[in-house]
């Protein structure tokens, strides 16, 4: 295309938008033309009247010329679309009912899709904000068979460093926890990066003061040094310029500050303290994500594919396999494991093959678009009903030469106005959610990686725009095509007002589908929402603010010392006047890990996706003081004794287990569960190093009441001696409120041992609030989605019913003129409505039955509500009656002579 043509189009777009040459200006020029022609003709001797007539004849039609100029000035379709847009807006205001109902449902659907998309976008596509951040990579060990990342040996790291040509500055980091202790005694638990000196070269960021970690700092025997972040420098050293050389105590070691990183620097994840990573000849480096990773930077000219090929070809050493399920590390040739190179940020997204993530992303985007289907189908029905009432308008336009495409385009633009408005509100919602989520993310210990920001990216904007277009296509185009399909055939008949539109089988099917969907899905969604919101509404059921928990661990690997420390800590805490009782558990109540159990002699009921591996349950490890602390009554059997806990540091433990009432009810409904046995299936031993063993039979020796917070779950308790669980969650019963508890705890803990860490100090009330945030968000989402679909279903049903009855008005009128009983006529109207709703309800009930049978409503967090299914049917019937009533009454009021005359 020539440059001048481009310029012409640009000016035409500009002309369409700006109206730079007004109609007045164009008319003035044409009038000038005629005047000049007239002047000339007069000069040639024509009389003034004659001259004017000849001038007009020679110049052609002025109106046509003006039209041609207007078309050339802008873009004709843009101009007409602008008109459609204005018309669409006017219709939105006029049909405010449709706008409100349809807009709400569309906003909910687009909003949910946008939030999910934005979350994906944050995790997958947030760029690494470093110089040439896209060239920073992670080198991982990938277990192809298990589809999992594995840890890396130090030897492999050394080999990669020595031999890779395509990746330079290879290093690693390991996240460790350290108590940061200042001379005034204040203690703060911080996550510290043990990092190779190469890390600072990879990031290409220099300290603002001092120097980064050098190779010499990482050699064994070197003095302990630390590089600190900007905010640590401000907070702990008041921004002193002479900070270099000052001391900072991390756990038991005193480190010398050698550098301060600039504000915002948190590489490799979200750190504010960096210490050298010491070589450990036989060591294993964590390399599976936030806990640690091997990184490097692509060499100049190298590509990710080449780097990956080189690392794959190099292979990994026949190394210490870290396969799960084994207590000891076995030497294996491990041919199934190999090296791989991935973009750095990819290393923190989970166990995915590099192609999988893109596929997953595409699939979920597609699914998110499908989320629009229910609201769109309903809006389509409403649009269709409205379109049919505008039949005369379209017929007139068609008769005047408006093409079908033109009319369909107009209806599409009208629908687009609604979906675009909904998309706008959805984006506002997304903005609100992003602010809330950002706030929440900051409160998470450690926080998200520094490159992830939850916000509205251009990809999200684009996605929302696509959603708006897709929504308009689904809700506007389909009914438009159907409604205008008969235009040509209707012709003058439509103009005369004799429309013969009928709702065919498609729409009858739609009514039935509407009702079926509402009856089938509504109860499930309501129960789910109730299950999650119940705790929030009626509270956890006990004085949760009187209980607090704190996670305690000893620096480094689990150690036998921990038992002594824990006993000493318990003794000192009990001496605190603000603390009434102390117990220890693997997890606080309500946060126990989920597992599957195989109960001897019982078969698990089959679910929709096959038979689950076992009954779902939770387990916890608790000390002998636990049940007393929470005042859980014993129902049967015995309590734990010292004999149930194994010798300190030993993995072996007794097979005695105490279960809660729910668990006992599952084992022996209404009977005695004592003496029954169960075992864990699929227990991930690696995740719970001191947890219960897989495939070992445990015997129920006692039954206790349900803890108020875990009323819905089956819980199995195992006995644990001090030191056996590490890290342990201390359970504290408080006297008075919890103000200053965290500081007091830290002081007591560091006075016992400076390498003892304490974090996650929360009251149980806080824990439940945190849980509720996520639960409530989920429940609100489900509620909003269901509510909007229901509202739409009711509106759609109403529109359809009203429409069908309205269609039969004439028939009703004629029959009434011929002497039919009003009662019979009304019955005829309702019979059809009830038939459709009845058919829909039957399908819906069938669906609900199967859903209820194969979806474990309680296991996915729902609570059964009695009578909800009939309730849903009654609700839909009510909607049908309401929808038919008005039109039926109108039909009866028709003057029979009128009805006959119009025929």
């Amino acid at each position, binding site marked *: 295309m020539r440059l*001048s*043509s481009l*310029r*012409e189009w640009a*000016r*035409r777009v500009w*002309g369409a938008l700006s109206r730079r*040459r007004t109609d007045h200006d*164009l008319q*003035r*020029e*044409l009038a*000038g*033309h005629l*005047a*000049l*022609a007239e*002047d*000339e003709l007069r000069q040639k001797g024509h009389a003034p009247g004659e001259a004017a007539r000849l001038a007009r004849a*020679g*110049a*052609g*039609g*002025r109106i*046509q*010329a003006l*039209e*041609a*100029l207007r*078309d*050339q*000035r802008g873009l004709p379709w843009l101009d007409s679309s602008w008109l459609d847009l204005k018309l669409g807006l006017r219709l939105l205001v006029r049909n405010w009912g449709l706008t409100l109902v349809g807009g709400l449902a569309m906003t909910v659907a687009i909003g949910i899709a946008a939030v999910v998309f934005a979350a994906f976008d944050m995790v997958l596509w947030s760029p690494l904000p470093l110089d040439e951040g896209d060239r920073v990579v992670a080198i991982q060990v990938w277990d192809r068979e298990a589809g999992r990342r594995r840890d890396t040996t130090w030897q492999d790291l050394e080999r990669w460093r020595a031999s890779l040509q395509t990746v330079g500055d290879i290093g690693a980091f390991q996240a460790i926890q350290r108590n940061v202790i200042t001379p005034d005694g204040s203690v703060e638990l911080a996550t510290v990066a043990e990092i190779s000196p190469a890390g600072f070269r990879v990031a290409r960021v220099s300290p603002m003061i001092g120097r980064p970690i050098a190779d010499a700092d990482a050699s064994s025997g070197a003095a302990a040094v630390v590089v600190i972040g900007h905010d640590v420098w401000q907070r702990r050293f008041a921004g002193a310029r002479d900070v270099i050389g000052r001391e900072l105590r991390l756990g038991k070691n005193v480190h010398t500050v050698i550098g301060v990183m600039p504000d915002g620097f948190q590489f490799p994840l979200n750190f504010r303290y960096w210490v050298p990573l010491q070589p450990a000849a036989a060591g294993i480096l964590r390399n599976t994500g936030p806990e640690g990773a091997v990184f490097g930077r692509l060499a100049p000219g190298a590509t990710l594919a080449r780097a990956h090929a080189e690392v794959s070809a190099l292979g990994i050493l026949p190394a210490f396999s870290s396969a799960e399920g084994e207590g000891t590390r076995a030497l294996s040739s491990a041919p199934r494991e190999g090296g791989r190179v991935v973009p750095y940020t990819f290393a923190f997204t989970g166990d995915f093959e590099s192609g999988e993530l893109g596929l997953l992303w595409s699939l979920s985007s597609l699914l998110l678009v499908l989320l629009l289907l229910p609201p769109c189908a309903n809006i389509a029905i409403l649009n269709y009903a409205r379109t049919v009432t505008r039949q005369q308008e379209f017929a007139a336009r068609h008769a005047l030469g408006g093409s079908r495409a033109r009319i369909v385009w107009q209806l599409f633009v009208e629908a687009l106005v609604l979906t675009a408005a909904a998309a706008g509100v959805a984006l506002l919602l997304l903005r609100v959610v992003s602010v809330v989520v950002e706030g929440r993310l900051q409160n998470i210990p450690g926080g998200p990686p520094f490159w992830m920001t939850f916000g509205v990216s251009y990809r999200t904007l684009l996605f929302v725009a696509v959603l708006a277009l897709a929504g308009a296509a689904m809700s506007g185009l389909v009914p438009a095509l159907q409604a205008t399909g008969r235009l040509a055939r209707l012709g003058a008949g439509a103009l005369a007002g004799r429309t013969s539109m009928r709702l065919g089988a498609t729409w009858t099917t739609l009514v039935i589908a509407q009702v079926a969907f509402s009856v089938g899905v509504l109860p499930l969604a309501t129960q789910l929402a109730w299950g999650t919101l119940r705790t929030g509404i009626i509270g956890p059921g006990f004085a949760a603010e009187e209980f607090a928990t704190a996670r305690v661990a000893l620096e480094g690997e689990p150690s036998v010392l921990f038992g002594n420390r824990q006993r000493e800590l318990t003794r000192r805490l009990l001496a605190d006047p603000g603390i009434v009782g102390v117990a220890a558990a693997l997890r606080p109540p309500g946060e126990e890990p989920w597992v599957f159990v195989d109960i001897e002699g019982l078969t698990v009921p089959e679910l929709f996706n096959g038979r689950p591996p076992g009954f779902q349950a939770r387990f916890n490890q608790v000390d002998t003081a636990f049940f007393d602390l929470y005042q859980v009554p014993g129902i049967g059997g015995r309590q734990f004794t010292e004999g149930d806990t194994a010798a300190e540091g030993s993995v072996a433990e007794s097979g005695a287990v105490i279960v809660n009432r729910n668990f006992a009810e599952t084992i022996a409904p209404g009977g005695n569960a004592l003496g029954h046995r169960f075992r864990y299936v699929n227990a991930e031993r690696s995740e719970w190093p001191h947890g219960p063993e897989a495939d070992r039979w445990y015997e129920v020796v006692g039954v206790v009441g349900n803890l108020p917070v875990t009323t819905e779950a089956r819980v199995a308790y195992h006995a644990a001696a001090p030191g056996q669980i590490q890290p342990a969650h201390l359970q504290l019963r408080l006297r008075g409120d919890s103000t200053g508890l965290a500081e007091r705890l830290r002081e007591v803990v560091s006075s016992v041992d400076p390498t003892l860490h304490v974090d996650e100090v929360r009251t149980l009330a806080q824990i439940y609030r945190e849980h509720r945030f996520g639960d409530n968000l989920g429940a609100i989402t489900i509620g909003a989605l269901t509510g909007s679909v229901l509202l739409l279903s009711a509106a759609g049903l109403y529109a359809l019913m009203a429409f069908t009855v309205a269609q039969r008005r004439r028939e009703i009128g004629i029959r009434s003129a011929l002497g039919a009983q009003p009662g019979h006529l009304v019955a005829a109207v309702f019979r059809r409505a009830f038939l459709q709703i009845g058919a829909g309800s039957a399908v819906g009930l069938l669906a609900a039955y199967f859903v209820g049978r194969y979806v474990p409503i309680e296991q996915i967090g729902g609570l059964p509500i009695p009578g909800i299914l009939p309730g849903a049917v009654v609700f839909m019937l009510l909607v049908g009656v309401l929808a038919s009533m008005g039109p039926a009454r109108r039909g009866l009021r028709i003057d029979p002579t009128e009805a006959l005359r119009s025929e």
Partner: protein
Amino acid sequence: MPNKEPSKAEVLRGTLDLMVLQTLAALGPQHGYAIGARLGQVSSGALTLNMGTLYPGLMRLEQQGLIKAEWGVTDNNRQARFYAITTAGRRRLAADKKAWDQMVSVMHTLFEDPA
């Protein structure tokens, strides 16, 4: 639009631009009526452009940046929009003229040499 003779505008689309540019290059700034009159004159009345053809054509050339326009007053004191050729217009004129000459020469040879 089936079964309809091509309009004058369509026939002229390719050549009208060239004629207008040439007129403006030769005579200097002119208003629309004068351009139309000039084309009628040189074609001995064979080419009479109505307003619906002439003015959209002028607007198109203006949008392409080949001519520019401003309001002025004619000799007999009438308000009119005066069009003048731009540098880009002169370049386009030269190029199109060359192409036109080549085409004429090809057609000439074709018609003169029936074998």
